[in-house]
């Protein structure tokens, strides 16, 4: 499975969730939201913005921060990673593991399958 989506760490993902919700958004406004929701200082937010910009996750040009990858892309990439690493790339094994612990319903499983086949 092709994977060109940049790697995003957990705390960066929390930040991206806010970005996806608010974009396009100014740096200072983003900093204010992150302070409220994540307890981050302004400098921390700015550091993360520039780091993710360098990694190609977002762009912070012309005063507005915009994402370059969508939430779905990130989720798919993560799932693809998991599939490769833990289920030898086998989709049925992956879904079987989920259904066995009863964490997802038949319908959800079908949906996941459909989503992954769209790739």
């Amino acid at each position: 499975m092709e994977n060109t989506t940049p790697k995003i760490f957990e705390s960066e993902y929390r930040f991206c969730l806010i970005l996806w919700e608010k974009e396009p958004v100014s740096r200072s406004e983003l900093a204010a939201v992150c302070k409220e929701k994540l307890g981050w200082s302004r400098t921390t937010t700015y550091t993360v913005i520039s780091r993710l910009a360098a990694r190609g996750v977002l762009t912070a040009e012309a005063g507005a921060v915009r994402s370059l990858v969508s939430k779905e892309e990130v989720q798919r990439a993560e799932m693809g990673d998991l599939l490769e690493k833990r289920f030898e790339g086998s989709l049925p094994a992956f879904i079987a593991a989920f259904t066995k612990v009863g964490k997802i319903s038949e319908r959800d499983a079908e949906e996941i399958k459909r989503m992954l086949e769209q790739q």
Partner: protein
Amino acid sequence: MITQIFNAVLRTALTSSMLIAAAVAIRFAVSRRAPKSVACLIWAVVALRLALPFEIQTGLSVVPRPAVEAEKQFSGFVSGAGTFEAPAEAAAAAETAIPAYKAAELACAVWIAGAAALLIYAAVNVFLIRRKLAESVPSGGNVRKCDRISSPFVWGLFKPKIYMPFGLDPNTESCVLLHEKAHIKRLDNITKPLWFAVCAVYWFDPLVWISYMLFCHDIEYACDESVCRGKSDEFRRNYGKALFGYSGARFNITFNPAAFGELAVKSRIKRALGFKRAGKPAAFAAAALIVAAAICLATDPVGSAVTAVVPEGEEPVGAVQGPAEADGHLTPEDVTDYNQRLYADSGKKYIVIRLREAKDFIENGTNGKKIGSPLKIWLLNGGGERIGYVYSNTSGYARFEVGNDFFGVCFDGDENYEKSVLYNYINAETLKWNSDCVFDLVIADKSFPRTVVRVTDPNGAPVSGADVRISVRGDRYLYAPVYRTGSDGVAVLPPAVTALKYNFDRPEITVKLYGYTVTRAEVDFYREEYEIQLEW
């Protein structure tokens, strides 16, 4: 001031060593039987003993009275608590103390450098950890998760939060939470940095570091214990598994937050699995042991009166006990008698300096009061160089052993008293040691007028560079300290009364310039300004 604190630290390190040794023994003795939460108290006792500058005296103390050691007491003038029973000790101290004072200052500098290095190390560590935690995200309650840490810990002094890495399995996460909450409840997030601060002060003392390490282990045990108390075997197995996940135990004595499962994992798992409800008798026995240790070892015997750090703003008091009887006063006969005994025994040379308050000295002579606040008295050699110092005791005496190059003492003055010198009255080489070795050093308080001498030439113009000294008439040794006039022709000398050795002396002012000498005999103790005209 710094040297005084250093002395106090050294003294505390020495006097607390017995307590620490006992603490280690108690800790290992009770560790299997009594609850760890009780065992931890012993470290609180040790930390308090090290951190508190004053000493609590009880009749039950078994700590030996502070023995005199050159390292401990650079002032060199110490004997047993108010008695004359320890001349050999005092002599040994004095022997090494006088040449050792330079070494003392070096040691003090090394001590400060070491403590500063550790504090800087801690500050850098705090900075790095804070930077790591800046990008953590909230995870409900006081829990935050962070990408950049590998094991969970509590961080923050006043608003402690639990920081965890992402991706812990649910079992580990719940165990970790319980453990870290126990830390917060025990206030370990505050006590651990405080302990580290104690270590920074006593960095030269391995016993303190051992205490710190054992303390760090014991707080982990205590938290494991409070989590596992009354829980099922299954819970304990799970808890042990969670600990096992962090078994990358490393041996460190660094300044680190109370991290989950970094210390002594194997033995902790063993304890967690085999944890039995500690019996109440065992807990009481352990507590009793600790209280006993605190009373007998963390306090000082009554009358040891070793006070090193006095309330701020005051001149620190050296641990000095001189020839003083129980009531704090001593007649000259006592001193002489003591000296006779002493010299007969040891063949060593001792000098006793008696500090006399100027006004009282003029009025009452040698039988008056002594200055009871300890003052730093410098010892001078034949070349007038400072070769060491002693602190006077609360009875106004300073006693020390001297060599043949000893020629005098001086006092530099402080916020209460003017400076004073006693020089060349004391010639150690020629003194008769069995009688005449008590000398008065007259010290004037600040209300006493200084001697301001203005020197003019025959035309009345001010003369600069003239040597002015104040001494006693007929003094064979004209070695009183010299003061030079400035461009305004003025030299400011200490109060004339400080030139006195006996109250029937008459001091005089001598001015010297290019071999011309002018002496003025009528010197009044209470007069400040004098004008002396040179005649060519």
